[in-house]
């Protein structure tokens, strides 16, 4: 009798349950929430009755400690009622029936509001500086150490009368690294056209190949030497990563270029290329935003443009006001990120103290879904 009493005391009745259409979703989902019972329970069962159906049926079970359930087996627009029951041993405790609820899909995801704000803010920054650059305002960019090396390499190859190998990475045209690389390729091609040295450009992506071809042709035309452009030297090899690496290795040991430029997107083949190139005695310059490959380029190449330096290099070489302006905008973006990191961390740490607890909502803003 005594035990029974304790048991009834611990298993207090379930409070009212809350049901609503799951927000910011594609529909077909209803959220059910309830208050935990005061005592220990084994689990909760969720029951549902659709409009026009007979009686409630169990649709799910959750462990004790959890107080919500997502019912994603509903029909949009249909009315449902829910009940929750707490189970402890053989004892069952049921809640009241919930109010009517129906699900529907939404047209805007509130969970992604932070992404939207971020995009608008940053786009505005970039466009603002591009606008200023276009109007002729001089913007400063510092020197990038790896860049002098590019000129030096081209010069050396010319003196030695040997070729220059330019690998525009293994990415596609939509990779930023590839786009930056194609910009740099244009500048390099201008130099090789002036000094009439050979420029070899092997490609892995057919589209990058066509663009690289056009870029080189254009560069040769621009310096007034369209006749010197050899179309055969810009070519496609294969779209398979390691077959491409095998073939470029072959080119490096056979043609013995005086300079190898690996600029763009790279994967595991980075070291295969760079290490083979190193044995031929070529001066090697790499640049990529593929974080995982940077350690290998740094070890095996003479100069490496790290991450964003690759983008900056393309801006620096071409001195295109648009590229320079955008770089300035990116720098301001970084300042905002650093500011958020410092202030955010400070306030969040403060929130460990009771009076500042409300600062912990900050973390919610960086929640992604």
């Amino acid at each position: 009798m005594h035990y029974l009493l304790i048991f009834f005391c611990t298993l207090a009745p379930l409070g009212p349950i809350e049901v609503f259409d799951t927000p910011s979703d594609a529909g077909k989902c209803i959220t059910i929430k309830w208050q935990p019972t005061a005592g220990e329970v084994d689990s909760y069962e969720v029951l549902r009755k659709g409009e026009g159906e007979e009686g409630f049926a169990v649709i799910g079970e959750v462990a004790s400690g959890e107080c919500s359930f997502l019912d994603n087996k509903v029909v949009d627009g249909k009315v449902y009622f829910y009940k929750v029951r707490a189970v402890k041993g053989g004892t069952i405790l049921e809640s009241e029936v919930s109010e009517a609820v129906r699900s529907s899909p939404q047209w805007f995801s509130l969970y992604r509001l932070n992404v939207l704000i971020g995009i608008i803010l940053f786009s505005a920054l970039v466009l603002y500086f591009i606008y200023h650059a276009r109007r002729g305002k001089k913007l400063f960019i510092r020197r990038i150490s790896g860049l002098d090396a590019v000129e030096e390499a081209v010069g050396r190859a010319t003196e030695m009368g040997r070729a220059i190998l330019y690998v525009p990475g293994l990415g596609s045209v939509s990779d930023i690294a590839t786009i930056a690389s194609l910009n740099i390729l244009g500048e390099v091609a201008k130099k090789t056209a002036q000094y009439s040295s050979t420029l070899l450009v092997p490609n892995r992506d057919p589209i990058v190949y066509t663009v690289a071809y056009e870029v080189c042709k254009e560069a040769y035309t621009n310096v007034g030497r369209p006749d010197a452009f050899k179309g055969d030297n810009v070519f496609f090899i294969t779209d398979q990563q390691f077959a491409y690496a095998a073939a470029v290795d072959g080119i490096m040991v056979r043609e013995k270029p005086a300079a190898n430029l690996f600029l763009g997107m790279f994967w595991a083949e980075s070291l295969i290329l760079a290490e083979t190139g190193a044995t031929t005695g070529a001066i090697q310059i790499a640049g990529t935003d593929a974080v995982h490959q940077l350690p290998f380029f740094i070890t095996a190449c003479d100069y490496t443009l790290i991450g964003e330096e690759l983008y900056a290099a393309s801006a620096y070489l071409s001195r295109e006001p648009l590229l320079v302006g955008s770089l300035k905008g990116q720098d301001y973006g970084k300042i905002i990120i650093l500011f958020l990191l410092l202030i955010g961390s400070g306030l969040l740490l403060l929130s460990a103290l009771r009076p500042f607890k409300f600062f912990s909502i900050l973390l919610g803003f960086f929640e992604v879904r």
Partner: protein
Amino acid sequence: MMPSPEILTWISAFLTLFIFSFLFGDNPIYRLAEHLYVGVSVGYSIAITWHNALYPDLIVPLFKQGNILYVIPLLLGVLYLSIFFPRLSWLIRLPMGFVLGYGSGVSIPAIMQASIIKQIQGTLLKPDIIHRADLLLWGTISLIGVFSTVIYFFFSRERKGAWRSLAGLGIIFLMVGFGASFGYTVMARVSLLLGRIQFLLRDWLGIIR
């Protein structure tokens, strides 16, 4: 010791050795393997592209199910071939514009979400670490590391004074990070080599179990 009776295993084994021969310098058998590999890989892609992309995604819906909408990708795709005709070659820009627009449009929110907002969230010092001295210290070091590395990548400012020291600290973090990643990757690459060696010694020659 029981070498494999399978002719196919022998072919694979020889190709494996052909590639390894490159380690000792360029030679005709490596060139053979290299040229074979390039040819086979392109041939392979042709077949895969037809069977896994063009046939099920284009031919079936367009011609078998009569979904007229699929004329659009067909047309855009065919325009890639305009490059073969110099006077029409500008048309290649249409499919490129489509694909690039798609790629850029998808990447803007994706990068903002995964590489910026989520990374900020991961770097922020959280209130629950305040009771753990070690976690607090590591978190703070991480924060300083991120901070100084980002400073290193500032381009529109001359590196002078305190700014210069911060960027220098960034280089320290970068180098330690690169060293650690290099060391970490050795293990994975040796495993790959072990896989090939096991193939040669076990599956082919049967020397080891």
